[in-house]
Each structure stands twice: as C-alpha cells, then as structure tokens.
C-alpha cells in the first residue's frame, strides 16, 4: 500500500532516513532544520529498526560521530544549516580523505556570519567547491520538492557507498519548511554486521575472522603515497563527472534565453518559463539536480543556440561561475539575478529581470 502523506521537507528527511535502513543519525539543532532531529526522536527508530539517533554537543561532534559510524561501514548521516556546515568542513575533508561513505544534509540559511534563519542559497561555494581543506569533491544533490527530500536520502546513500565518499544534499529553508504531498519510501531492512563485513571489507568493525587489521585513515606521510592517493581520489571524481550528472530541462529545445536554477529557485523559475511562453517568449530552464557533477554539457549544448543565460539563485551569485564555465563563450552573456537575506524572489521579479536582460542583450520581447 502506498504511504502518501502531507509533510514538511525536514520531517520527510527523518522518515526517509529510517525507511532507507540508515544505522545512525547524529545532529545538533539549528534553524531551519531542527525538525529532522525532532522528528527522528519522535519516531523512536531505535525501538523498531535499531537505528541510533543521538543529539551531539556541536556540529563538530556530529560530523565526527558520522566519521566514526562510517568507519564501521554503517549507513550514517547528519543534517545541519549553514553556520553548522562551516563547523563540519574539517570533518568532511577527513571523510573524503579516508574515503568514507555518509550523507550530510545542509538546509541552508542566509549568511555570512550568524546571518538569518530565513532561506537562502548562499552555501553553493562551500558545499560544491569543498569547504574543507585539500583536493576533494563530493556529489551534491539539490532537491526542489518535498518528494525529492524523500527520494534523495536513499539515492545519496547509494552514491556514497558506490564511490566511498561523503554525499551532500543541499536543500534550502524553503524546501525544508514547506509542506507538500509525498510518497514515502517502503521500509528497507538495515544491513547485518555480516552483510557489512562482506560489502565493506575495509570497515573497522574489529578483526573478527579477518587475518589482517583494517586501518581507516586519511594520513599518508610519504609524499609519493600521498600523491598516489590524490590521483586515486581524482579518478573517482572524474568518474562521478562521467556517470552521475543529473538535471532537468524545461522548454530548452528552441529557447533563446535560458534560466539556470536549482532548489527553491528552480520552482520559481518554472513559473517564469510558463509565463514567458504564454507571452510568446522563447525562454527555457535548466535545473541542475547534481551541483557536483555540474550539468556542463547540457548548458554547453544549449549555448549553441542561446542568446543569454540568467543564473537565478538566492545569493549574490555563486553558481553563475559554473554556468559561465559551462557556456565557455565570452560572447554569450551570462547574468545573475537573486534576492538574499531570506527574501525569496517572486516569479514576477525574476521575469522582470529576465526581460531587462533580454532588452539589453538584443532579445526579442
């Protein structure tokens, strides 16, 4: 029987975690995602699936708890919001360096600093470009609906174990707080220790019947070994770029102007495309679902016919750098539009900005 509910995005993250057979969640309350931990403690999964839920003393502790669980080959996750993610960045670097699978969710809010608790998309640089130190990458999934908050948790774990790498879900305060209809996933069983020992022969679970010991580390003091390790990691990131690009297109076939937007902004931009098409304007939308790997080819393809790109983000313009790199042609104008401070741009505002952009760059109105 289908389990259809009306729920907040953050609540759905909690349900999805339990249902996808996660072994542990470690988190610290921070607005606008505190409902994730609250919902989990209400669900009491330790009594049903045996999943561990623990409120840590800080985001520094939560990410290192995730590191501990992941070292044992467990399906573990945390969620936070922007300032909390800043504290987790050292841990993310260690997780990537030690090649540990885990899921980290950022329901982002406005910054910099303590900023505001309202929704924002100003964590793009931090999440997509690294945040922590060293040469590392993480797949980043950007949900734009409550349904995708459900679907992406399991997908993120799948990618995390496929690549032995932390996987980020970059949501925003809008997707976390809004209520929508959602089809919850069926309950998957948690893996037994025997299954984990088979699937994750690298995991530090105690030697058991193994003859040799397992060491989980990101430390390679010998320069040659360290460089080899970096090349190994890079090969994984290259494979992600080949195999894991996900995006959606809307009315791009004949589009002269392309909006590029993810998360909450992509929902707003979908309305703009509808309105523009009614007015006879050739406008389309490319919505990156994975921010890393970025849908570079899709944007470059669209750039063969397009007259301009408008990167619409709830920030001062961060993803626009990737859009420019993807367009790869200085003659095609790429512009940013977006509100910040917790203000959500309206479809009308975006449409006006688009028309202004078109006027200035020779587009037909």
């Amino acid at each position: 029987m289908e389990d259809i509910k009306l729920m907040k995005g953050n609540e759905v993250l909690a349900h999805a975690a339990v249902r996808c057979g996660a072994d542990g969640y470690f988190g610290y309350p921070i607005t606008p995602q505190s409902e994730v931990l609250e919902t989990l403690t209400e669900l009491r999964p330790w009594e049903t699936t045996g999943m561990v839920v623990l409120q840590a003393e800080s985001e520094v502790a939560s990410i290192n708890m995730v590191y501990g669980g992941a070292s044992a080959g467990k399906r573990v996750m945390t969620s936070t919001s922007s300032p909390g993610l800043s504290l987790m960045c050292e841990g993310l670097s260690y997780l990537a360096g030690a090649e540990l699978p885990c899921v980290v969710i950022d329901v982002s809010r406005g910054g910099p600093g303590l900023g505001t608790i309202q929704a924002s998309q100003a964590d793009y640089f931090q999440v997509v470009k690294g945040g922590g130190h060293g040469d590392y990458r993480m797949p980043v999934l950007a949900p734009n609906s409550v349904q995708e908050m459900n679907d992406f948790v399991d997908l993120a774990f799948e990618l995390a174990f496929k690549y032995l790498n932390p996987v980020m879900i970059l949501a925003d305060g809008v997707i976390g707080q809004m209520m929508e209809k959602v089809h919850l996933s069926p309950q998957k069983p948690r893996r037994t220790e025997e299954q984990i020992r088979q699937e994750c022969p690298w995991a530090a679970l105690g030697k058991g019947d193994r003859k040799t010991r397992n060491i989980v580390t990101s430390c390679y003091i010998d320069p040659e070994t360290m460089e080899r390790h970096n090349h190994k990691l890079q090969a994984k990131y290259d494979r992600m770029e080949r195999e894991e690009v996900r995006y959606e297109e809307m009315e791009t076939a004949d589009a002269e102007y392309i909006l590029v937007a993810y998360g909450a902004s992509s929902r707003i931009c979908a309305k703009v495309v509808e309105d523009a098409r009614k007015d006879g304007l050739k406008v389309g939308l490319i919505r990156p679902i994975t921010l890393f790997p970025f849908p570079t080819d899709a944007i470059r393809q669209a750039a063969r016919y397009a007259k301009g790109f408008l990167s619409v983000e709830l920030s001062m313009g961060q993803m626009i750098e990737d859009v420019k790199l993807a367009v790869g042609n200085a003659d095609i104008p790429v512009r940013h539009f977006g509100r910040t401070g917790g203000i959500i741009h309206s479809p009308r505002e975006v449409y006006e900005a688009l028309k202004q952009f078109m006027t200035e760059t020779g587009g037909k109105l």
Partner: protein
Amino acid sequence: MAETPIFEVNETDANRVYARPRLLLDTTMHYCPGCSHGTVHKLVAEAIDELGAEDKAIGITPVGCAAFLYNYIDIDWVQASHGRAPSVATAMKRLCPDKLVFTYQGDGDLAAIGTAEAIHAANRGDNIAVIFINNAIYGMTGGQMAPTTLLGMKTATTPLGRDAALNGYPFKVADMLTLLDGVTYVTRQSVNTPANVRKAKKAIKKAFENSINNRGFSFVEIVATCNSGWKMTPVGANRWMEENMHPTYPLGDLKDLTVTEK
C-alpha cells in the same frame, strides 16, 4: 672485556618470564628513545590480548605523536581528526555495542582542542575507554606548551616558564571528569617503575573491561615523560617527572563505581 657466556635455554611456557606481546607488531617505533608511549602501547596490546578482545577491539588514534599507533598493534584502527576521537568512539560504540572501543590521546589532543568532545562523551556515559597520555607538552609539533604544562615549566611557547597570569594553570582533566555522573572509572597512573607499569596495565585492562561490558565511561590518565620535548635524558626525565609532575598530578584511583557495584 670478558666474553659473555652463552647458555642454551629451552624456552617453554613454564619458564618464560617475559615476551613481546603477541599483538604488538614487530616493527620499529617512531618514538624518541625514553618516551613513555612505547611502554603504554605494550600495555594496551597485552590488555587486549589477555581479555581475548583482539577480534572485537577498535582503537581510535589521535593527532599528535601517537597518531601512528595503528602501525604497532594488530587490531582495527580509525585515525581521528585533532581532538575528536571521543566523538568518533561514541558513534562507533553506539553502533557496535558488543565491541571494545577505546581512544588513545595526548594532552594537546584531549585537554586543549578536544576538551568539549572528551567531556561530553564522559558526561553521556558512553561505554568507551580513554587512554590519556599527559606529558605536559606538545611532542609532535616540537615542545610547545600544553594545557597540562606545569607552572614555571619552560617550553617553546613559554620560554620564560609557564606564567599563571598569562597562560592559566595546569589543567587537571581527570579530577574534573570525576564530577560527571556518566563517568564510571577515573584513574591516574605512570609507567616510571616496574611496579607502576604493572598498576597502569591493571588500570588499562579494567577500563577495557568496562567498555566491553558496557559499564560507562572509563578514563586512564598516564603521567608520562617526553624527554625530547623536556630536553632531558630519559633517566633525567623520569626523575624530573617524579619530582615535579607527580605532586601536581598525584597517582591513584580518583573514582571507581565498579567497586561499589560489587
């Protein structure tokens, strides 16, 4: 010089009085001669072996001199970021409650950058054992002041000696932890004499037993030497520790709930 007489000895279990611990790997350690780490590593290896916990032991290594502990003892290891080993151990133990989970941390790792993680793991009563090496100095980075550095003690960052007005006081972590309800066992030991080595081993074994049997948080502080950091000979460092460290950090059990439980 007279030739050393050679005896033919038939070594058996009955006449063997000392041997390399089975779990201690036959490799050269990176520690300076005279450092306490080697002795404590040996005790950790012996304790795990004697408890029959080789198959279920997971150690969390720190950042600092003991970061490479995983090269020396034949069990599973996880290398943690600076100070966060107790968080790593917390999750590990909660997800694998039948394992022996312990951290091994120095004074910079545990008492400076990782104070919050250590205190909160202790306060939650997580069923882990923490081995805390207190040598009152940062060894790995070249002899800077630690939170446990004694007043007046000269280090690379207190060239005139630690001044309480500037740097505060020696941090008595073990004493502080005894106040927390989640803590089962706190003891302070040293490995400067054969008798103290035996006592330290007993303490480590008890802490490991507590983790295996899920009896709360155990903390074994080892007051240790860092003769390189202190710029002393190994023998001189041992003497200096007895005369200066032990009065500030007196040895013995500070708390043991397993005694009253019995």
